[in-house]
């Protein structure tokens, strides 16, 4: 039994990738859940908001690179991120002004708002295709690894290598910082408390003099900032391809529902639950079993599902939660 090598392999192939992916999902799910809490509909345009924002960040990154600006070992995209968020937030606020506000005023059914978000999704998708195209784009620069496989092997003397990429570290740090900032905002500031009050009970919040339009604007800006961060980190970690951002909508929705729609804590927990299950179920465990039980020679790869079915994992978790606890693990809204 070779526990050290098994642990390193688990860390390298399961824990680190899943933690990075989980942070990206958590940021995305936070946006979905905030919009659900305040505006009370599932925003189908969220994936394409992520894609559009990331496209903006990529364009700005290229511009910065052309001007010779760089952050040394850190990707230039981080410098472009605030400007990308500002541009995307401006577009999203315009969609609210021209599309969603009307339905809020006439108090339309949530499903009509969902339908409107499908229209916004089409427009955003077209805009993304128009500005940046449909090809796969890699835009990470700077140092690739904090710990590379060779370094780790030389340091530890183990047969199994461990790599920790810069993008993974940045994902974890940025996600942790933004979650901390968001929860501080929601719990400590006046505006954050107004948002929570509006989410809990709209009429009571109106009665106590909270300006609903201001709350809605803040929600859109925060959700967009989270979405663009999630999209940029995902693009840095893997690569940018517009269609992948549409597909990531399913794990993000699943994360938000698993945690309980409307509950920010739930969204973060849901993101990590989905990510860890997805990676654990699609990872071939044969190598790790080989370290732990050297005498056992399994026939297959010990992979529960092939990687093509990773979306099935989020779907199954979603179904299980719907069956056993429809309001989610953290008791979200039931309306």
């Amino acid at each position: 039994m070779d526990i050290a090598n098994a642990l390193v392999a688990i860390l390298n192939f399961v824990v680190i990738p899943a933690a990075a992916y989980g942070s990206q999902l958590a940021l995305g799910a936070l946006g979905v859940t905030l919009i659900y809490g305040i505006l009370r509909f599932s925003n189908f345009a969220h994936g394409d908001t992520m894609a559009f924002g990331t496209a903006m960040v990529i364009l700005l990154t290229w511009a910065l690179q052309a001007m010779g600006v760089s952050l040394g070992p850190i990707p230039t995209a981080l410098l472009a991120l605030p400007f990308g968020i500002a541009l995307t937030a401006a577009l999203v606020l315009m969609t609210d002004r021209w599309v969603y506000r009307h339905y809020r005023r006439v108090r339309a059914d949530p499903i009509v708002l969902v339908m409107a978000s499908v229209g916004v999704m089409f427009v955003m998708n077209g805009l993304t295709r128009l500005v940046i195209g449909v090809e796969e784009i890699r835009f990470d620069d700077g140092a690739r690894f904090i710990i590379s496989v060779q370094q780790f092997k030389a340091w530890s003397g183990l047969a199994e290598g461990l790599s920790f990429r810069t993008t993974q570290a940045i994902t974890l740090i940025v996600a942790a910082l933004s979650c901390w900032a968001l929860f501080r905002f929601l719990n400590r500031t006046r505006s954050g408390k107004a948002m929570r009050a509006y989410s809990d009970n709209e009429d009571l919040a109106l009665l106590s003099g909270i300006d609903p339009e201001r709350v809605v604007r803040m929600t859109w800006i925060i959700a967009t900032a989270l979405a663009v961060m999630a999209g940029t980190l995902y693009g840095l970690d893997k690569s940018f391809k517009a269609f992948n951002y549409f597909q990531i909508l399913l794990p993000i929705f699943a994360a938000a529902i698993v945690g309980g729609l409307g509950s920010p804590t739930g969204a973060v927990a849901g993101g990590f639950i989905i990510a860890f299950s997805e990676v654990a179920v699609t990872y071939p465990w044969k190598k790790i079993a080989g370290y732990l039980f050297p005498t056992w020679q399994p026939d297959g790869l010990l992979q529960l599902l092939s990687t093509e079915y990773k979306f099935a994992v989020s779907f199954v978790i979603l179904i299980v939660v719907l069956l056993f606890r429809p309001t989610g693990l953290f008791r979200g809204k039931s309306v």
Partner: protein
Amino acid sequence: MSGSRQSAAANPWRAPALLAVLVVLFVLEGSLSNALFSGSWNSALGILNMGLLSAIMALGVNITWGYGGLFNAGVVGFLALGGLAPVLISTAPVPGAWDAGGVRVVLALVVGLLTLVLATIVARRVPRAWKFWAAFAVVGVGFVIYRFLFDPAVIAIEANNPAKAGNIGGLGWPVLLSWPVGGLLAAAAAWGVGKVALGLRSDYLAIATLGIGEIIVAVMRNEGWLARGVLNMSGIPRPVPYELELQADPAFQARVAGWGMDLATASGIWVKLSYAALFIVIVLALIALSELAQRSPWGRMMRAIRDNEVAAEAMGKNVTRRHLQVFVIGAAVIGLAGAMMVTLDGLLNPAGYNPLRYTFLVWVMVIVGGSGNNWGAVLGAVLIWYLWIKAEIWGPAMMAVITAPMEAGALKSHLMGSAPHMRFIAMGLVLLLVLRFAPRGLVPEK
């Protein structure tokens, strides 16, 4: 929304006027040859046939949305599942495939199904605290047995003549028979999803169907034993003659000579017309059935449920069960369209099932045409499909006019290169404008 659906009576001339516009558009496409129109009847009829199939998809969506107010975001999955039927029913059997592992695969699928049934029963009988873990244990054991049966069989089937087949093969039955089977496949999947997601909050169904849509397409892409996966399944039999057969037929040759047409063009048009006739018959039959249902007591009950669920429930109607019913019927119609589409193409190409094109564009068709109105859905579908196809050509043509004063350079070539993507923006805007200013669509519900 519910209040405005049945308010003022709409102008009865709207549907005929829209039909007239469509006829003019198709005649222009068939006869005028310029920057905007191709001037080829083959192209016009090609658009018409896909438009008619889109109309059937739109009818399916309209049943779930118009009657039930349910949002099905997985149209693409039910369509793809329906497309499996022509492959499994009507392609020729693959020699040796069934012996290689057919029985074992069927056994594995039965075990998988039984596991789910058993897990449901266990979850219902066991006390609350243990419910989840008991069901989990049943599924875990079932999954191991399933994989033990399934994996070797799949490897054996895929190893059987992998260059040309590698799939389980069909039954060799007539292709028209596979169309209703496609509907049944989609209905079965919809029943499973609906059973779980209906009766909860309305967006849950949307998100669950979004998931099942992606999973069905992923299964069809990756399960090579089923229909060759991404290798595509071609040579699916046709219900109408082949162009080459027609060209070799002396009677057809004589008739074409009488019309004074080119033999190749005439055979293409003949085949497309035969398909169009077949599709129109089915569209009309579906509309007739749908209208009959709408006027029956069942249809009145469905409208009552849609317009006020609480009141309908108070009158003793089982809302969840009725919702499941319309959801399954709608999915069946979409599955039928899927089987017909694969038959028309003669090809099953799982990589081509794009949710934007097959889920959300169909939704645009229904909303633009008029939710709750069958004629509206059909006319809207043909119109939107026509615009979708032509916008790919009109977009660059328009961009060429806009960019004409610009000097040649990177920006101009980028703008010209991405002009075909403008149709996504156009469709989004059309949906938003209709939803906002004419929420009842071009041909509103009566």
